[in-house]
């Protein structure tokens, strides 16, 4: 008699309830962390290196205590900052045939802006009471300017945007060969438009 009966099935009805409890716990405790930010490399601590910089190769951005942004001796709106920075880096002031002539630059080749993207230096000065968000916004605009130019060159040379090369490079699923190729490409583009951002000591006045 006993052998004829199939074994009693375990009731799995409460399984859903248990899983729901766990689910709700994780839903509540989750903060899907999306830490992202602007990476910067600070100069090292030796103040020995003093280089002569020509005035035309230096693009000075200052932010004062009341968060006004000054670039190239005039107070400007943050919206046109990116355009100005691009125009400055991409100017390519050397004339054709000169050593260091920038053949990929598409700027206006003005006499008072940078000679060559390699020589272009951006300086960001702040004061003690400058707001941090404004500073971040300025950093963002400068980095955006570089990214725009790098994207343009990357599209021209490799037919892929700089950002996608960059994100592919940090993707762990690619093979070593691809990685090497991507690294090479990144280095080529970075050499065309090297990021040179100076941050002089805060001036107290």
């Amino acid at each position, binding site marked *: 008699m006993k052998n004829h009966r199939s074994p009693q099935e375990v009731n*799995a*009805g409460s*399984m*859903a309830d248990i*899983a*729901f409890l*766990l*689910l709700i716990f*994780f*839903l509540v*405790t*989750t*903060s*899907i*962390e*999306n*830490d*992202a*930010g*602007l*990476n*910067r*490399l*600070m*100069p*090292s*601590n030796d103040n020995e290196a003093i280089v002569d910089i020509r005035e035309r190769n230096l693009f000075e951005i200052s*932010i004062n205590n009341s*968060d006004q942004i000054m670039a190239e001796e005039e107070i400007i709106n*943050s*919206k046109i900052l990116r355009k100005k920075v691009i125009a400055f880096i991409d100017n390519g002031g050397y004339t054709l045939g000169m050593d260091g002539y920038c053949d990929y630059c598409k700027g206006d080749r003005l006499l008072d802006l940078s000679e060559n993207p390699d020589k272009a230096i951006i300086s960001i000065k*702040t*004061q*003690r*009471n*400058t*707001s*941090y*968000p*404004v*500073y*971040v*916004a300025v*950093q*963002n*605009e400068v*980095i*955006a300017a570089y*990214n725009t130019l790098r994207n343009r060159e990357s599209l021209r040379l490799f037919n892929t945007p700089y950002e996608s090369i960059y994100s592919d490079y940090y993707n762990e699923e690619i093979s070593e060969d691809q990685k090497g190729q991507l690294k090479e490409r990144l280095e080529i583009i970075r050499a065309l438009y090297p990021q040179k951002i100076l*941050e002089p*000591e*805060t001036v107290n006045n």
Partner: protein
Amino acid sequence: MIKFNKYRSSKSLPPVSTASLPDIVFILLFFFMTVTVMKNQNLLVENTLPTATETEKLDKKDRIIEIYVGRPTAEAKTNLGDELRIQMDNKFITVDEVGDYALQALSSMPEHLKSVATVSIKADIGVKMGIIEDLKNELRMVNLLKINYTTYEGAAVDNL
């Protein structure tokens, strides 16, 4: 037709099977378990980050040293006043101590990550540049040069 109706009415509808419900819930559960990052720091400062568009992801947690800057939160304020504060390792520290604490955090990292350690500066939107500059100088003193201004994604003009 009549026969069909008769058939239907004679037998009630079978109940919808809920046997696969646990599976669905488990899939959801595993999704949340994998994306969850439990906060390991109790925030003592207000921390609304500014926004930026040109951000890069900080996905590898093992090489990040976090520094929070902001005004103390309502709970922490009782005995501390309203000055800007720096938080590391669950407590308030002064600017001079930043280097020590950063080196301490660095020394607890595995050897191969020490050269790629990044300091993530999580500063509130109410922070002034003075304290940030001091902080950066301290970090330069201990040769931690890779920094990250941690932000939310969003148009940078929202900051102004």
